[in-house]
């Protein structure tokens, strides 16, 4: 059985994949290695995990605005996540997702961090403001 969650579009597009969920906000500059897609921030819950091709489910972003460029570099290196779901978007990841053409949504009508589990199969349809848990 699948369930639909309404949300708000931040960056256009649609993609599916396995969720990777964290309760920690993420900084891409200094927090993720753009060559490998691996989280290198030792204090982060996802330390040593690879976010490549995942549906990244995070509360928010943080850190330097250069983080937007790091996401762009990840997209060029094919190490970026397939889509991003934020509880509340902030400019760094929003800009990064749009310039990298990664679908992104925020403001879901449920507490997304506790609704989606890591490895759930998720479809993010930003154009229709919908998240589908398959």
């Amino acid at each position, binding site marked *: 059985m699948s369930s639909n969650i309404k949300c708000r579009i931040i960056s256009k597009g649609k993609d599916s994949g396995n969720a990777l969920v964290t309760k920690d906000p993420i900084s891409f500059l200094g927090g993720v290695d753009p060559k490998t897609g691996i989280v290198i921030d030792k204090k982060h819950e996802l330390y040593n995990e690879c976010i490549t091709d995942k549906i990244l489910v995070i509360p928010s972003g943080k850190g*330097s*605005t250069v983080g*937007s*460029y790091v996401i762009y*570099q990840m997209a060029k290196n094919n190490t970026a996540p397939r889509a991003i779901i934020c509880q509340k*978007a902030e400019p760094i990841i*929003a800009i990064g997702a749009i*310039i990298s053409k990664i679908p992104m949504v925020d403001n879901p009508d449920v507490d997304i961090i506790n609704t989606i589990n890591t490895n759930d199969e998720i479809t993010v349809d930003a154009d229709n403001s919908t998240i589908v848990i398959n």
Partner: protein
Amino acid sequence: MQLTKYEEDMYNGEYGEGKAECMEILVSLGKIYDAEKMIPITSAQVSGVSYKTIGDAGLDFVVDLGKKADVTLETMLNPAGVDIENWQELGFSKEFTDKQIDIINGYESIGVMSTCTCTPYLIGNTPMLNEHVAWSESSAVCYVNSVIGARTNREGGPSALLAAIVGRTPYYGNHILENRVADMIFNVDYDFVNEAEIGALGYYVGQIVNDKKPYFRINKNPGRNNLKTLGAALASSGAVSLYHVENVTPEADYSRCHDSFEELETVTVDKNMIEETLEQLTTTDKIPDLVCLGCPHASISEIQEVANLVKDKKLTKDLWICTSKAIKSISKQCGYLDIIEKAGGKIVSDTCMVVAPIEELDYEVIGVNSAKAANYVPNMCKLDVVYDTVENLINMISE
């Protein structure tokens, strides 16, 4: 969000892929901050220039964007990681400099003026009262909002650049007059004599207010150079984008007459708080092996002051005064450059002690008269800091 016909057309790609992408980003930013519309802007200041901070990721983005978009209004660039003409003499590597030049060329291809300074308001990018602009660089944001009275949010490098391309920014925050009033009052019970004390005041208050808008009562007009220092400090220990100084800055009266003013929390800043902060900003007892002034980039009157201090002296350690090429050129014309070079100092253009890879040079202790620099240098350059006035710093390194 309500878009005009022109904005809607840009969003839908009728003015090209580059502008459509910029509009998509700015509309999303507007949504994040609940903006009701876009507002036209008249100038921009773009940060994210040093190869040390943006790396290959930023270089890729800037070069790619240059292929599909151009800025449409007066847009200036923040400092780079090296002095473009004198990198070799200062000891920077060719590899770093080559990358840095690629980044600057990338910005130039978008139509950004390669001014490489954090004080664009000293070289002609000076908006008027109430003008809407999109500036990044926290110290410049603070100056243009507070001292000039133009209106900008604390943009990041990318959002300022994209706004310069479409000529619009989301209408929220500091763009709305009502949001520009003070929300905390600081009665400063201290007789300021120098810039290090003013910087310490900014550093102290920034820690307390974070992103609030402080209203200062100071017993005399600190002057433009010190207001530049004050704003830079407020924006580095906190995230201040706008402050008011009673009887000095242009919107202080509006703030004071606002209904909310009577109920604001009031804090008194005394001598002890300033002195403690001064001590806190110095990390070592050693004598600096480099004195680095010009954070934010020095004005011509600040350079004149240094020239007067070093005249007929011999410096025993290195002295850099960071500024723009434009101000360096005026210093040369006025004879200050010659005086400073004769004493053994240098005027360094295009870069500064925060964004240059100073950690690659052989320095251990840096002397600064900027609380902003004192805040960032220990982490970003791994150096010890002596925080003092320009006069005391010059005395420490002269015969």
